[in-house]
């Protein structure tokens, strides 16, 4: 009991402390100018947690006021994460102007398809709990998770097909968000099924996942970005000769 209590508080507070360090590191490296939405998202997360902790430690405890505030933070965080994904898409395609058109088509197509799937899901399985706030919160969370998870997978697939190199920072942000969105999808489905805000296992899984995501962001954003040096490597000769002959023949036409 004490262990679960301690673990719960650790997982609640530690990621936010790490986020503060991450935000400070981003400011020092000038990354807050490169990823302003992610910076705002991180700051919002810290602020929201501070408010929730303050409410929980006050005479209100984990009552209705707390749950109302929790629902607001879920909505605000979801909106902020969408802005971060948009920021990732924009930054990604800015490096490859040829792909701006196909990228927009992908973003629009994926958003429409995922939105239809998520809305369909919300209609088919609206949740069984009598608590409206709980249902609204987790149905929203589930819808948003479907969209975010799908968009990030689309972005990863797109970059894989075109063999595009992600800058480490953007890759780390996308990976962390993707992991969080996929776990959040499972957690919101389970929470809706259980019909309660306060299932300890569900809460611990969410918080532990978020902790991992913050560590991923720290790893990618605070460590020096890797640079590729493979253009300097010499390649086997037999291929070079074949290619040389073929290219010379083509260029002489």
């Amino acid at each position, binding site marked *: 009991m004490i262990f679960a209590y301690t673990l719960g508080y650790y997982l609640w507070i530690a990621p936010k402390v790490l986020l503060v360090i991450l935000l400070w590191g981003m400011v020092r490296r000038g990354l807050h100018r490169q990823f302003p939405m992610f910076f705002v998202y991180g700051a919002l997360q810290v602020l929201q947690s501070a408010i929730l902790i303050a409410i929980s430690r006050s005479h209100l405890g984990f009552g209705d006021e707390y749950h109302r505030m929790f629902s607001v933070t879920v909505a605000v965080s979801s909106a902020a994460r969408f802005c971060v994904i948009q920021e990732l898409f924009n930054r990604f395609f800015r490096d490859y102007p040829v792909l701006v058109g196909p990228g927009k088509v992908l973003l629009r197509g994926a958003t429409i398809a995922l939105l239809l799937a998520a809305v369909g899901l919300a209609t088919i399985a609206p949740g069984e709990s009598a608590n409206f706030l709980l249902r609204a919160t987790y149905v929203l969370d589930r819808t948003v998770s479907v969209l975010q*998870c799908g968009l990030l997978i689309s972005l990863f697939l797109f970059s894989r*097909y075109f063999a595009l190199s992600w800058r480490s920072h953007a890759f780390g942000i996308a990976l962390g968000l993707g*992991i969080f969105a996929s776990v959040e999808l499972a957690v919101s489905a389970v929470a809706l099924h259980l019909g309660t805000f306060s299932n300890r296992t569900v809460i611990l899984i969410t918080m532990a996942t978020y902790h991992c995501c913050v560590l991923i962001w720290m790893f990618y954003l605070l460590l020096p970005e890797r640079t590729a*040096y493979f253009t300097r490597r010499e390649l086997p000769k037999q*291929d*070079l000769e074949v290619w040389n002959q073929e290219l010379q023949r083509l260029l002489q036409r």
Partner: protein
Amino acid sequence: MITTAILVFVALLALFCLLWLAKAHASTSEALQNPAEHIHAVDVEAFRNLVDPEEEEFLRTNLRPAEFRRIQRERLRAAVEYVSCAAQNAAILLRLADAGRRSPDPATAEAAQKLVDNALRLRLYALHAIPRLYLGMILPGSRISSVGVAERYEQMTRQVVLLGCLQYPTRGVSAAL
């Protein structure tokens, strides 16, 4: 209960998919340590011949319909292989040129940028050409023109030569390949 179980399964699938794609991203970088092993020879002329409408017309008039369809399917299957190879090469060249874009030498950076753009266009074109070639295999009588892929490929290889010259002025043009 069933919906919840399906959603949990989908979420786990999405998680594994993300982790696999992230891992694949890292392994692509490893493959580039030795790109020559991954670059396959592509005979542009042979490909052009395979998708040449005049050649197709010649075969159509000189062969029996059943035989023409069989041979045309074979030709298009080979053309798909060529496009896939060219697209795969483009992917590797793209990654190679990507690093060149950050070169302090403006000429190298410019050549690398052009190569990246052309490689991307080729990948994009291959994305459209391959289904069309497959459609042609299903309907061997329909007319397909994928000569643009060959032209794009030629354009791209010329830029590789230019980039090679800029990066390895003393070593020969195709050092970048």
